[in-house]
């Protein structure tokens, strides 16, 4: 019996125009992500890694092909419906953290739950739990400008996982972090993946990150070059 995938892309094309030229950011890409996957997307610059994440989340629309996220065809949804789907099903971690600057660390983490309309007590419990989990106790009331890069990325992770989404998408999450912080963050993501079974799909250039990924997907020119699962000892 086949299990419903968290994310499934079928024959997805995304073509950008640069002057007279057409750039195939995704060129007939098909991909299936199972629940609990801890998958890294690797490839040279311009291979389509970020476009893949954006298309998967419905932030960008493919020119052709099908994108099914948690059982819903993303390409057929309106702008508002896609926003709602992201709110319910997707957590985001960005390379440049992208926190809401006027909100504190706690409020940033709480944001998604507030939008979902979760009651205050449950919201408080979840946010306390996740801030503890990412090691931000004592920093809850600081605004992003008062946090280091590593701390900001931890807030971003907290925001991404607090709503227990079906899928966490991370675009080069360690790119702006020093080695120690990057490894610590990766450890945290692994821990969350193992503890909660959260599905992760992250793009990376970093060989250390690729080594830690449970599944490594390689893209070249918008096409799937390889897709293999790692066997960790």
């Amino acid at each position, binding site marked *: 019996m086949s299990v419903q995938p968290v994310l499934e892309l079928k024959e997805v094309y995304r073509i950008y125009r640069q002057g007279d030229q057409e750039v195939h950011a995704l060129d007939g890409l098909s991909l299936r992500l199972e629940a609990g996957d801890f998958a890294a997307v690797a490839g040279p610059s311009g291979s389509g890694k*970020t476009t893949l994440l*954006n298309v998967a*989340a419905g*932030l*960008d629309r493919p020119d052709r092909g099908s994108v099914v996220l948690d059982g819903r065809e993303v390409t057929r949804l309106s*702008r*508002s419906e896609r*926003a*709602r*789907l*992201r*709110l*319910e099903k*997707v957590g*985001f971690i*960005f*390379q*440049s953290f*992208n926190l*809401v*600057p*006027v*909100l504190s660390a706690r*409020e940033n983490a709480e*944001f*998604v739950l*507030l*939008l979902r309309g979760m009651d205050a007590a449950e919201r408080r419990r979840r946010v306390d739990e996740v801030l503890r989990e990412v090691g931000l106790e004592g920093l809850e009331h600081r605004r992003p400008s008062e946090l280091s890069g590593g701390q900001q990325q931890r807030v971003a992770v907290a*925001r991404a996982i607090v709503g227990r989404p079906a899928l966490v998408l991370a*675009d080069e999450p360690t790119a702006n972090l020093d080695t120690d912080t990057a490894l610590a963050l990766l450890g945290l993501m692994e821990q969350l993946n193992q503890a909660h079974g959260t599905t992760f799909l992250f793009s990376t250039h970093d060989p250390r990150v690729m080594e830690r990924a449970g599944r490594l997907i390689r893209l070249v020119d918008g096409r799937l070059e390889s897709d293999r699962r790692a066997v960790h000892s």
Partner: protein
Amino acid sequence: MWIVLRIAWRNLWRNTRRTLLTTSTVGLGLALLLLALGLGDGGHMQMIDGAVRMGSGHAVVQAPGYQEQGGLERTLKADQTRAARRWLEDASRRFSIRATAPRIFGSALASSADGSTGVRIVGVDPASERQASDFAGKVVKGEFLEPGARDIAVVGSGVARKLELELGGRLVLMGQAAGSDEIESRLVRLAGVLHTGLDEHDQTLVLVPLETADAFYRLDGEIHQLAVILEDQADSGRLVAEGRRRVPAPAVLGWQEALPELYDYVVMDDAGNYVFNLFLFLLIAFMVLNTLLMSVLERAREFTLLDALGLPPASRFLMVMAEATYIAALSCLLGLAVGYPLHLYLAARGLPLEWFGMSDVSAAGVVIDPVLYSYLSWGRIGQSMLLVFGLTLLLALLPARRAARSGNVQLLGT
């Protein structure tokens, strides 16, 4: 919802200087508007009051057709006058009626030993007229008409000069009586000279007691007009409406109909003021639009982030509209805080027109007071604040739409 409003409020203070500059500009614009409206409305009220106190009334009861065609014979019959007086007595319980004044209007040739000139005769009840008009206060020589006295006159300064009249001197009035072809003449003695500053009064006006005018024109106790003076001219419309229901036979007119030239002037002046205010607000509007648009363009990445996090377009739209609402509210508070005390000061102390090199100004047949006093109703203040709110929210639509549509994912990757 609350988180959206909270973010909107905090966004406002990310660029404190810009927010303060914008709210100050809009607020001062509102203060200027309140000042302009206050002085405009106050000036008009003073003009209306001045005109009313120079022989008209906030409302007048006349024979039908008298306003349009005039005519010595077009009088209020005795029973009509009685009915009108009964109604006004009753109405004084509901309206701020200060005085009612019966009047007779006619024309005559006035002659003295030194010449003759055409004059306007106004027959008045001296006691009522002292309360109803400013004529008594404008007497510059001699005295105003004394109650009970007959065959005396107070004339405009121009008439006195032309006829070289001295106090107690004789003046012969010659004119046609009502319903007759015969020429009547009557001798009156000069009791006083008045100077209003308006040629139409000073060069032609002759005030005589009501009984003298009645006898001269043979009106048998009938009058041409019963003028009503109110404490609060805002009551005029309601009083006239009630009068038309209660005393249908005579014509009950408001000052707007009794003084059509003044009414047209006020309407035109108001229109001019509105156009000026519109230009003022268009300038301010561009400032608001610039602030909001810049603020949204600067935050394109943030709006895309909010989209990525699942904040629907409608909420992003609401966020910018909320920011505009905060700006409008702060601006209104500031505008009121600055504009209202200024209005109170100008309402109490006035603005001397001589500061602007203006003296002896008249318009639409009314001498304008040399000191302009501000008058602002809460309705006017409400209108102005609504204008600021409406305009700000209207201008926010474009930036808000832009925020709702933001979704350039390229911005998030770097």
